[in-house]
């Protein structure tokens, strides 16, 4: 029963007509008619607006439903941070809990009797859904690369340390920060994890684990978390699975976190930027088991993550069901979110070598070839920057060499270039070509530097370049053009050809003379301050 057919109206007429309707169902049918008909975005908006207008009284329910279907395509169910209503929190992995979260008859049944379709984990051989299991400790996957811990690993250890110290203060229970890592040679890194805040570091060494591999890393992590393996390697713990688990939100960390949490039959909050532990009041009958009853759950890890490019934050909770546990409560952490603690080599801790047979089958997918991309050049933080501009045009390779010679003469200097060089067609010879790339560009569209001394050789001083070096303490310009714009914002201007001036500067600095005194450089032209 539709009161109005939207096809008969322009959007304006429709908006006016909608004013007369106060019934949500009727509006819904108009909306459907519009969708089936012309499907005008503006018309749909008008109907939605009207729906919202009449909604507040009756619509809390459907709101909650919409809130659950996040457009992100993420597994977790989220809720807006502003609305801390625990009713709508439900941190379970959708993959694992579809069947479980349905309230009603099914709840009373043995999950094992569910049909396969409604229980997507049914066919998984490793699933050990626990009920009333024992959980303790915060586990942290410490990712390594090239034989070193990633910064984010230390950051998570630092945060884990804080969280578990507070945990002890709040609850009186001492639980550990457990670092777990794997690789071809990582015992020393396990020690480093202790120094960075872990109480226990569990590692698995195997030369085949030099690089991240999806399958073996997942198998080992799950094996470790469940406490499987020889008695010697597991007698330090007395629980079923970790209480909490953190992964880095790096490419490999994201990959591993999803797989491990699925193996452990728990959920995952991906890409989190803040964490805290406190109790949570729950009234969702799926979680409490009894409609209308409020229950307080202790020691809940609150995992905050930015949504919609950071316009909003959601807090994800991962809570047990009455007959099915969701542990470890896990997330991946955005690098840079937390501060590492100052490493303390004297910290006491237990380093445990994990013991497990790795099936050859897990290595069917291997790494045939790899290439390490340049991490990029950071020109900030140096005492001196030598920047070359298009003044090197006559002999680009030689100009670059002269610039590099001067850089080497200083204790802490780096070479920068202007955009004019990056975008030029200069043919640099192989040994200096790497210095002509965008990663060394200084200016508006490159890096912004503020060294003690900035030496601009053959740089005209376009505004876009100035932006990138204006804050330098002392600016020295070398240019054949006495009217070059850079002269306006240089402390010293050397009127001369960089091909002559640079070698003399280098020589003077190597000779230990204070080459930055005007008299030492004024020979190249006129000193101008």
């Amino acid at each position, binding site marked *: 029963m539709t009161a109005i057919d939207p096809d008969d109206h*322009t959007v304006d007429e429709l908006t006016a007509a909608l004013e007369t309707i106060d019934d949500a169902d009727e509006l819904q049918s108009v909306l459907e008619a519009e969708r089936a008909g012309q499907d005008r975005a503006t018309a749909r908006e008008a109907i939605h607006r009207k729906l919202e207008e009449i909604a507040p009284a009756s619509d809390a329910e459907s709101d909650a439903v919409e809130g659950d279907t996040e457009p992100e395509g993420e597994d977790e169910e989220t809720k807006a941070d502003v609305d801390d209503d625990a009713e709508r929190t439900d941190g379970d992995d959708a993959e694992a809990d579809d069947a479980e979260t349905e309230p009603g008859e099914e709840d009373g049944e043995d999950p094992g009797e569910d049909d396969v379709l409604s229980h997507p984990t049914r066919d998984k051989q490793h699933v050990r859904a626990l009920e009333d299991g024992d959980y303790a400790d915060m586990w942290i996957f410490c990712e390594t690369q090239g034989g070193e811990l990633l910064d984010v690993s230390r950051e998570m250890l630092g945060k884990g340390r804080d969280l578990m110290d507070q945990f002890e203060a709040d609850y009186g229970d001492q639980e550990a920060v457990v670092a777990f890592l794997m690789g071809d040679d990582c015992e020393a890194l396990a020690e480093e994890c202790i120094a960075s805040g872990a109480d226990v570091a569990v590692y698995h060494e195997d030369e085949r684990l030099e690089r991240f591999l999806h399958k073996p890393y997942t198998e080992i992590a799950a094996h470790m978390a469940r406490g499987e393996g020889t008695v010697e390697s597991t007698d330090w713990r007395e629980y079923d699975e970790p209480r909490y688990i953190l992964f880095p939100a790096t490419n490999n960390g994201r990959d591993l976190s999803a797989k491990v949490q699925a193996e452990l039959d728990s959920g995952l909050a991906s890409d989190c930027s803040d964490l805290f532990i406190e109790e949570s009041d729950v009234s969702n009958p799926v979680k409490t088991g009894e409609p209308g009853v409020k229950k307080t759950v202790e020691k809940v890890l609150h995992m905050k993550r930015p949504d919609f490019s950071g316009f909003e934050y959601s807090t994800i909770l991962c809570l047990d069901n009455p007959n099915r546990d969701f542990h470890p409560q896990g997330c991946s952490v955005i690098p840079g979110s937390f501060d590492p603690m100052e490493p303390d080599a004297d910290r006491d801790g237990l380093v445990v070598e994990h013991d497990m047979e790795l099936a050859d089958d897990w290595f069917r997918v291997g790494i045939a070839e790899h290439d390490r991309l340049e991490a990029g050049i950071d020109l900030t933080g140096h005492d001196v920057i030598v920047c070359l501009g298009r003044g090197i045009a006559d002999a680009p390779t030689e100009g670059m060499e002269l610039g590099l010679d001067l850089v080497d003469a200083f204790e802490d200097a780096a070479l920068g270039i202007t955009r004019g060089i990056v975008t030029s067609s200069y043919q640099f010879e192989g040994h200096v070509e790497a210095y002509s790339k965008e990663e060394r560009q200084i200016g508006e569209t490159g890096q912004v530097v503020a060294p003690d001394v900035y030496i601009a050789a053959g740089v005209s001083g376009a505004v876009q370049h100035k932006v990138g070096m204006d804050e330098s303490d002392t600016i020295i310009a070398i240019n054949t053009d006495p009217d070059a714009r850079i002269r306006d914002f240089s402390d010293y201007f050397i009127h001369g050809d960089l091909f002559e001036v640079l070698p003399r500067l280098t020589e003077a600095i190597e000779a230990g003379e204070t080459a930055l005194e005007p008299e030492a450089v004024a020979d190249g032209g006129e000193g101008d301050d």
Partner: protein
Amino acid sequence: MTDDHEHYEAVVVGCGPGGAAAAARLADHGVETLVLERGPEAGSKNVSGGLVYAEESAPYTLDDLFDGFREAATERPVTDYYIHNVAGNSVKTYDLTDLHEHDTDWCDSVLRRDMDSWLETRVHEKTSATGGGVLTNVRVNGLLRDHGEIVGVTCDELEPIEADLIVAADGVNSELARDAGLMDWAEPEEWFQGVKAVVDMAPDAIDDRFDIGPEEGAAHLFSGDLFEDVRGGGFLYTNADSLSIGTVFHLDSLVEQSAEPHELLDALLTHPLLAGWFKNEYHEREYAAKLVPDSKKVAHRRPYRDRLVLVGDAAGQMQAQGPIIKGMNHAVTAGALAADAFAITRGTADPAAAGRRYTTLLEDSGTMAKLRPRRYDLARTVGERDTVTNAVERVLASPIGSLAVGNPIADRLLQRAYNSPFLVSMLPDTKTGYISLPTLIAEEHGKTIHWESDIEPPTLEERIGDLTYDTDVGNPHIELRDESAAASGAAVTACPVSARDFGGGCYRSEAVTTNGTEETLVSLDTQPCVECGTCAIVADTEWEHPRGGKGVEYREG
């Protein structure tokens, strides 16, 4: 409807005068209209010399479509109109007010940022009343096709959008017109390139120095040997508190002479004739450049394909015939007619019905006749042939030429000739009309100017530095396909933000030694780009506009 694309009855690409007129008129007809503008605000990408006309004979004018347009969005009405023929320091001035007033209801000077952003607000009001609106920072990058038929547009920032009518009002470098195969960038002789400086001047100083009242304005055109052998001219228009001063040249002539557009502009700015107006004060607010289609040659006679219609510069609708320079008014007419054509043919099964009707309306309204006068087509066939030009040139250089042009009767005739729209529209585009004749006129009839100009226009580097850019780092919108000097070297001089021996511009010429042989290569940095399109024609490039909101942002325009 195919797929799940968003659909509007009409999509207008570009919110300049053509797009604004089309959108406003569509909204008047109750059509659901979405306007997509790639600038952060309408006008931020637009440049014009600065006069907008309302012709008595035109079916639509801006103040018909937008109430209060002249009060809110224009600078000054043009009440005085002159042309100066220059030979060295000798200048002969003709009053062209009669020509200017022919068929003119009104004519105002404008700055495009102010004007177009005002239009945008009105267009948004009108179009949102019929279910659409204006979206800025959205670049339409091509046409959406279904089984080869144009059905909508694709954008950098949004999902594809379908529409029953697509109005390409995306300017002289229209990517839609090129996508549809209706326009190209092939021939330099089909284009002009204009560069312009907006110069500060207090309102009372303008009134005083140009001898006009506060509600009056002056327009001055310049021709002659100011620019050596480059075919083109200059203009100066008074705004409320600034002057728009610019030069416009045939692009082929710029390329032939390897002339630097900014130097030609400087030649005008520093001419003694202008010193009397500047009084040695010169503060340039903005340097700008634009490509101008020569409607005589490129105004498309059937500017449509399927549901797509072209409007304004996108269709080559820019009338530049000697001292008659009219573009925006024709774009407005065309935009409004395209909207009317859609309203009339709405419901017709043939998707091209609107375009066909639009073509008919352009013809019937006389607009096409103004843009592509048949007289010109006839005159051009003889007039532009080199032999004829050379013959006429020789006559002018001879004593007979001086005698013919130099007698007092000839002077009166010349003034009449310049003031005749009929004769002016026949002026062929050769050296004779632009340089030789005006120079001779100035030599024979001119008064010598004894002022000296002390003003120093900014360098190109300073001009670029003063412009506002939002650079799309790592995503250049122009790619140089061939970096050899032969293919792309012309851009080094012709590009208005590049110059020989200047490393801070878009195009730089570089001597490169590879394996012992030295060759000259051209390199490109799109950061200083003002998006004029010159290099799309004179160099071998892959040319696109920057993404929405990126690139240069004009404050004056």
